């Protein structure tokens, strides 16, 4: 068998030694050269070490003794450790020392590799980059350890719980007396000499007689008052007692907690192994401690052939588990076939050559899982553990029994094989015959192939000839094509010529035909000429006439224009005079407007100035008038007063005026004058002096008036000046216009004269009007006619010329045409000939091509190769036949051997089985054990790692317990159900233990952590946080009747899949066939309700904390009798087979009640038709029975009453899900649905009662249906 061994990649590196490391090495060898040459290469485990120098890496190299044998001899079997700094020129060893041989060299943080060390200083090997890189990529081991240390501290609480009483020394006691129970399983011993403290701790300890080899057993109860302990005895002691052979030599007992301590030690070692990186899967720490477990993506889903019949969820789970890389989690509610899934995974692993560990918290679960594995040669199961704690189902697989198991299996297989022997001979003959037929077929194929080969040879020659021929034909065809092309060209030319000639002749004859003859044509010509002349004459007359009309019209216009001008000119002359005479500006404007004289810029400016000043001259006339009145009044006064006095007054006034200034309105002046006049009129006698005053007043006013008037007068003069200037300007404008007008006059005169002479001339040119005044067509038409005539004439002339030229040539053309026709027919004939020839050649060529193709086809087939194949096939068949014949020849020998083997196996001795056992154990591939046992040293040594670790009932184990098997798995598969019960510690639930711990020591750090874990177990956290690819819930249950399942469905409502019933027809599959007082055939769920009164109330034993309920016991007694009887009836009526026993489990939330039930069953009842089992709900997890009776116990009337353990939905879930056919609850509905303290609990039990009611299963304590409104 050529095994392929991967070539180990050896790295070669330089090594440099410091003095210290050299000294370390020299302690073992004379010189370092020799040391590194001990082996050509060394297997080392490299660890990446934290280094203080930032830019340098450090590594530690571990040399394992097993892998380095020569080195190991020198190191005395120890592990070599070399500290190094990783340099580019090699490894710099800083220290070398050894560790004891037991220290593990392989961890998941170290890299295992083979290294060849070059020690020579002058060596230029250096350090391979590859090595540098791989070290760099390694995790720094200390960091990982610290990480684990930190996280795992939170699990310490579990160990603290167990260690609570464990850290103590052994202690001794003397005993006087002992007594055994009825079947020697327990012993009660009265002891002396242990302290009060020790009494508290004695429970759970192992006991032995001082000096004896074997333990007696374990203390399960202690009674300090009576000074007795009760011991559960080991089987060996039990049998000694039965024989009355247990006679201890001393009366001294030793109590020891060795078992507990060693268990805790194992758990703690699990912690440190994880910390040291000894987990088979390096990813384990991240799976356990990261909030979201970090897992590697599963590889592609494998497709599988399943050995068991699986439903979709189970298939999904198996396929998922096999595809997963690190971790797969399966949630299995009650009865959903977890064990089938586990068994299938084991089988698939075995097929793939993998080794599987099946671990569980309890022995029962391990045995259960192993017993379901199919008997199959691929699977070699080994059950590891203490024989006495292994259940019957698992015992077949314990080390001492496996050989026997194997022997039975092999015998069975052999017998089957031997029974087939005659068939085998026939089968072989048949096979040989078949092969021979095949051989014949192959041989005839050879013949036909050889014939074909010859044909091919012939064809090869033919091909060549044909190809030659084709070539020539192609050549000929080429020549013909050329010829044909030339002929076609010639023909084309001839036809073209012919057409031309025909055209010429046709045209000539047509032309001649148009006129009849040449002379006729000439006559026509003369006629046309004369018509043309007459037309031309008419046209010239009409032209002259129209010109005259035009000239006369122009003349008339010229005369009219002159008349207009004359009028305008006269108007201008008048305007000239008007301007000179005009006195007002409005007048001037009117003149200008009237004669269309545009005012130029100068006039416009003057006009604007005029208007502005005129506006300022407001009141000129008034001032002028008032001045005149004033002057006349003054004149009057001066006259009266006399000049000298007047002059004096005037001077006086003028002097005053020079000093001041007075202003007066016109009205005031008027009234001053009027005042004076009235004075003159009214005063009869006027004194001169009185007049002085008036004069003075008037003088004063005259100064102001003079001033005012002077100003206005100036403005008036300015206006006048402006008006004058405007007039002058207007005048000059008019005279300019007059000059222009005069010039226009002469041009008008000239035009008139010109048109006058034109008219005269034209009148002369026109013939006598009377003669020419005939009807004529309009001029334009005439012109058109003339043009038409001219065109006709021209055509006529052209025709004439053509006829004259062509007439002599026409005969010649006709001769040519005749010639062309002959030539055409000749060439056509020639062409047809060529075409025919070409076609023939072409056909010939095609035929040849076809032939060639066929030949080539024939040649293409690789007959030689086929021939080789067939020859090879023949060889194979011949070998096969030889083999078969060999087999046939061997068959009797082998059969003989098998018979012999069968005989030997039958007679196998202890020794034989022992040898087989060794082989079996060596090659065992499914190993079952409990979690804690998987941490035993012996087991660790034998089975350090597994390809796959499956842990069942995960939710029942504490994380430290789970860690032990997990450490060993490259892949881990967890199976559990977090809706069922959490771990027990000893006999107590975690809750109880925690409560006890907190009472003892409230400061305990771990309690918080534990509380958290209580809320959400490791399993639950993993299941919730893993991606879909790494988990599966099994959602089809096969255990319970559908109606029983309804009671637990609510617990799984929040999962991805609803819990379904896989039974096709529950009523058929889970028919209990029972018909009794309590139970009707159709009942599958009953609640026997007890009243909230004595004797149905809970009670407590004097010195125990557990509870019992006497009333419920009575009901259970009646119920069991009833069931036993009903079973008997069912058998007699044929519903159940004779000898069948109904399996009935009676369970309770309380241990004390279970004890009472046990007593009841053992002592008071004889139930031959029932197979009974009792236990607490917690202990019943994982089991199933046909009928389950749940005694609920709690029932109290006082206010403090509650339902205790029954509050936990997980406990209720377990209790409800044990029954296959019938579930009977016995307890007070009042207590559980109404009086329970917690609201959730009341709701939970109310829902349960609702389901019971719906199924008409609510009975009173006498077993009659409860009827309520």
């Amino acid at each position: 068998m050529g095994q392929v061994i991967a070539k180990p990649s050896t790295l070669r590196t330089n090594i440099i030694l410091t003095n210290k490391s050299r000294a370390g090495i020299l302690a073992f060898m004379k010189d370092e050269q020799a040391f590194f040459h001990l082996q050509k290469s060394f297997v080392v485990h490299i660890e990446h070490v934290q280094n203080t120098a930032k830019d340098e890496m450090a590594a530690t190299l571990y040399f394992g003794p097993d892998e380095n044998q020569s080195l190991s001899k020198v190191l005395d079997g120890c592990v070599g450790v070399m500290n190094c700094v990783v340099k580019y020129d090699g490894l710099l060893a800083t220290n070398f020392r050894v560790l004891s041989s037991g220290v593990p060299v392989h961890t998941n943080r170290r890299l295992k590799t083979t290294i060849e060390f070059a020690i020579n200083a002058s060596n230029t090997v250096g350090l391979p980059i590859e090595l540098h890189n791989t070290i760099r990529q390694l995790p720094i081991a200390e960091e990982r350890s610290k990480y684990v240390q930190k996280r795992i501290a939170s699990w310490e609480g579990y160990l603290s719980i167990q260690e609570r009483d464990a850290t103590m020394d052994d202690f001794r006691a003397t005993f006087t007396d002992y007594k055994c129970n009825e079947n020697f399983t327990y012993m009660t011993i009265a002891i002396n000499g242990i302290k009060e403290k020790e009494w508290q701790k004695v429970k759970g300890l192992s006991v032995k007689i001082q000096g004896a080899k074997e333990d007696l057993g374990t203390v399960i109860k202690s009674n300090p008052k009576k000074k007795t302990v009760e011991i559960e005895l080991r089987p060996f002691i039990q049998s000694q007692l039965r024989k009355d052979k247990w006679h201890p030599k001393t009366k001294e007992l030793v109590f020891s907690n060795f078992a507990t301590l060693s268990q805790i030690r194992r758990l703690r070692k699990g912690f440190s192994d994880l910390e040291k990186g000894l987990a088979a899967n390096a990813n384990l720490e991240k799976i356990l401690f990261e909030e979201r477990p970090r897992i590697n993506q599963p590889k592609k889903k494998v497709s599988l052939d399943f050995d068991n019949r699986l439903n979709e969820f189970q298939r999904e789970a198996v396929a998922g588990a096999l595809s997963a890389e690190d971790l797969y989690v399966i949630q299995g509610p009650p009865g959903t076939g977890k064990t089938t899934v586990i068994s299938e995974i084991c089988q698939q692993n075995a097929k793939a050559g993998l080794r599987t560990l099946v671990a569980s918290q309890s022995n029962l679960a391990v045995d259960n899982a192993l017993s379901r594995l199919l008997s199959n040669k691929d699977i070699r199961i080994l059950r590891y553990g203490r024989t006495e704690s292994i259940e019957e189902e698992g015992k077949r697989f314990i080390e001492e029994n496996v050989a026997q198991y194997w022997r039975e299996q092999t015998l069975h297989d052999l017998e089957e094989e031997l029974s087939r022997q005659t068939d085998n001979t026939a089968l072989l003959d048949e096979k040989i015959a078949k092969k021979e037929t095949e051989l014949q077929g192959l041989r005839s194929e050879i013949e036909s192939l050889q014939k074909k080969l010859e044909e091919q040879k012939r064809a090869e020659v033919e091909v060549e000839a044909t190809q030659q021929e084709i070539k020539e034909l192609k050549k000929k065809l080429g020549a013909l094509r050329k010829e044909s092309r030339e002929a076609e060209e010639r023909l084309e030319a001839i036809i073209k010529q012919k057409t031309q000639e025909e055209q010429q002749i046709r045209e000539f004859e047509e032309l001649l035909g148009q006129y009849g003859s040449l002379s006729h044509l000439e006559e026509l010509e003369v006629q046309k000429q004369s018509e043309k002349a007459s037309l031309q004459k008419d046209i010239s007359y009409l032209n002259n006439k129209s010109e005259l009309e035009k000239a006369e019209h122009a003349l008339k216009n010229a005369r009219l224009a002159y008349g207009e001008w004359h009028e305008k000119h006269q108007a201008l002359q008048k305007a000239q005079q008007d301007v000179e005479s005009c006195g007002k500006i409005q007048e001037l404007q009117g003149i200008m407007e009237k004669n269309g004289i545009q005012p130029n810029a100068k006039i416009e400016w003057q006009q604007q100035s005029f208007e502005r000043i005129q506006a300022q001259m407001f009141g000129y006339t008034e001032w002028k008038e008032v001045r005149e009145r004033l002057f006349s009044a003054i004149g009057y006064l001066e006259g009266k007063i006399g000049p000298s006095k007047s002059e004096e007054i005037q001077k006086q006034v003028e002097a005053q005026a020079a000093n001041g200034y007075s202003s007066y309105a016109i009205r005031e002046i008027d009234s001053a004058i009027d005042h004076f006049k009235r004075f003159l009129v009214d005063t009869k006698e006027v004194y001169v002096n009185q007049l002085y005053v008036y004069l003075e007043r008037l003088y004063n006013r005259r100064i102001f008036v003079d001033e005012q008037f002077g100003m206005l007068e100036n403005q008036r003069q300015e206006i006048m000046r402006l008006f004058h200037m405007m007039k002058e300007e207007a005048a000059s404008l008019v005279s300019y216009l007059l000059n222009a007008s005069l010039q226009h006059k002469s041009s008008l005169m000239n035009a008139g004269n010109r048109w006058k002479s034109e008219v005269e001339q034209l009148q002369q040119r026109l013939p006598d009007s009377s003669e020419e005044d005939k009807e004529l067509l309009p001029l334009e038409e005439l012109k058109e006619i003339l043009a038409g005539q001219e065109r006709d004439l021209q055509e006529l002339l052209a025709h004439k010329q053509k006829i004259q030229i062509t007439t002599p040539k026409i005969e010649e053309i006709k001769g040519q045409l005749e010639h062309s026709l002959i030539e055409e027919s000749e060439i056509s004939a020639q062409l047809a000939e060529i075409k025919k020839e070409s076609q023939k050649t072409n056909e010939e060529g095609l035929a040849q091509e076809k032939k060639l193709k066929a030949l080539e086809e024939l040649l293409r087939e690789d007959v030689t190769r086929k021939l080789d194949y067939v020859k090879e096939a023949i060889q194979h068949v011949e070998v096969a036949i030889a083999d078969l014949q060999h087999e046939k020849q061997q068959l009797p020998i082998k059969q003989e051997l098998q018979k012999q083997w069968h005989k030997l196996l039958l007679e196998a001795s202890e020794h034989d089985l022992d040898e087989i056992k060794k082989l079996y154990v060596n090659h065992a591939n499914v190993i079952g054990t409990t979690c804690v046992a998987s941490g035993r040293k012996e087991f660790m040594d034998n089975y350090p790692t597994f390809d796959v670790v499956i842990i069942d009932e995960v939710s029942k184990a504490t994380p430290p317990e789970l860690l032990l098997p997990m450490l060993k798995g490259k892949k881990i598969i967890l199976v559990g159900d977090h809706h069922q019960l959490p771990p027990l510690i000893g006999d107590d639930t975690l809750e109880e233990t925690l409560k006890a711990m907190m009472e003892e020591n409230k400061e305990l750090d771990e309690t918080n952590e534990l509380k958290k874990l209580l809320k959400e177990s490791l399993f639950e956290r993993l299941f919730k946080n893993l991606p879909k690819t790494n988990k599966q819930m099994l959602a089809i249950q096969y255990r319970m009747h559908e109606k029983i399942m309804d009671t637990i469905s609510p617990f799984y409502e929040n999962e991805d899949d609803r819990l379904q019933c896989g039974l096709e027809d529950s009523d058929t599959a889970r028919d209990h066939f029972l018909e009794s007082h309590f139970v009707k055939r159709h009942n599958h769920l009953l609640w026997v309700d007890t009243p909230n009164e004595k004797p149905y109330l809970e009670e407590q034993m004097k010195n125990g904390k557990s509870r019992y309920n006497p009333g419920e016991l009575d009901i259970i007694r009646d119920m069991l009798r009833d069931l036993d009887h009903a079973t008997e009836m069912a058998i007699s009526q044929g519903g159940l087979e004779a000898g069948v026993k109904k399996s009935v489990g009676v369970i309770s939330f309380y241990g004390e009640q279970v004890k009472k039930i046990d007593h009841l069953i053992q002592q008071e009842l004889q139930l031959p038709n029932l197979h009974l089992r009792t236990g607490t709900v917690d202990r019943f997890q994982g089991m199933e029975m046909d009928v389950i009776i749940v005694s609920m116990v709690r029932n109290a009337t006082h206010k403090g009453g509650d339902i205790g353990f029954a509050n936990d939905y997980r406990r209720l879930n377990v209790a409800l899900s044990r029954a296959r056919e019938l579930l009977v609850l016995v307890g007070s509905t009042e207590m559980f649905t109404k009086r329970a303290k917690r609201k959730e609990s009341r709701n939970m039990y109310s829902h349960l009662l609702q389901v019971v009611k719906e199924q008409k299963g609510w009975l009173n304590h006498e077993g009659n249906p409860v009827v309520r409104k």
Partner: protein
Amino acid sequence: MLNELEKKLTEQVNKDPQVKILSVSRWCFPVQTVECIFHPVKRETMDILMKMILLSVQKAEIKDPKELSDLLLVEELFVLDLLQKLMRKGLVEKEVYYQLTVKGERQLENGIYEEEMEEETQQLLYSATHHLLLSGDMDKVDRIDELPEPFKYASEETIDLDEMEIIDALQKTREMQEEEDQDEEKVQTFITSIDSKKTIQIHDVPCIQYVLYNRDSDLLYVRVWNTLTDQWDENLENMLAAKDLLDFRREYLEKE
């Protein structure tokens, strides 16, 4: 003799003050002496799988381990292990087929050499009531002169145990004897089949039955001392508990 025994047992039972003896009775159950005749064989202790491999290699033409695995219906891994071991030891070599070396031939010859020994006879004790072979000193029982009345559930059916079970018992007895006079290391004797077996005698084995009551725990139970096996007989106790316990209760307790 039985009186003495009863006295001793009563004393023992009475050690527990809570236990009250409700009744003591004596009865007998039948034990058959079954005589088996067989021819043991003597052979060297070469284990059978190795022997079969050597034999197969010698007689058949075996090319590879798979063939051998198919022939013997034994896991290929096992075959591979053993073949390697045999080749290492120089017992087997391989050219085209595996074959034995001279050394191998010699070893095999020794291994399969079986010497049929002289006919032997051995007697076994069988209780149909127990449906078991019992071991004990019948001579001692025979010396008891009293003979109480027969046990109500006694059975005298002839032995119908599996032959393997009987051979095992015979073999064990032989081995115990051989251990005493073992000189040769590697040679052992084996019983491969039983030539004949027949019941040659029926003994009556007296028993003392106690019906006990533990007042403390209201527990009624039965103890039966078997004078052949010289111990409290669990089988008989269980049989009585299952069949008579309620009657006992009725008889002894309800009267009070």
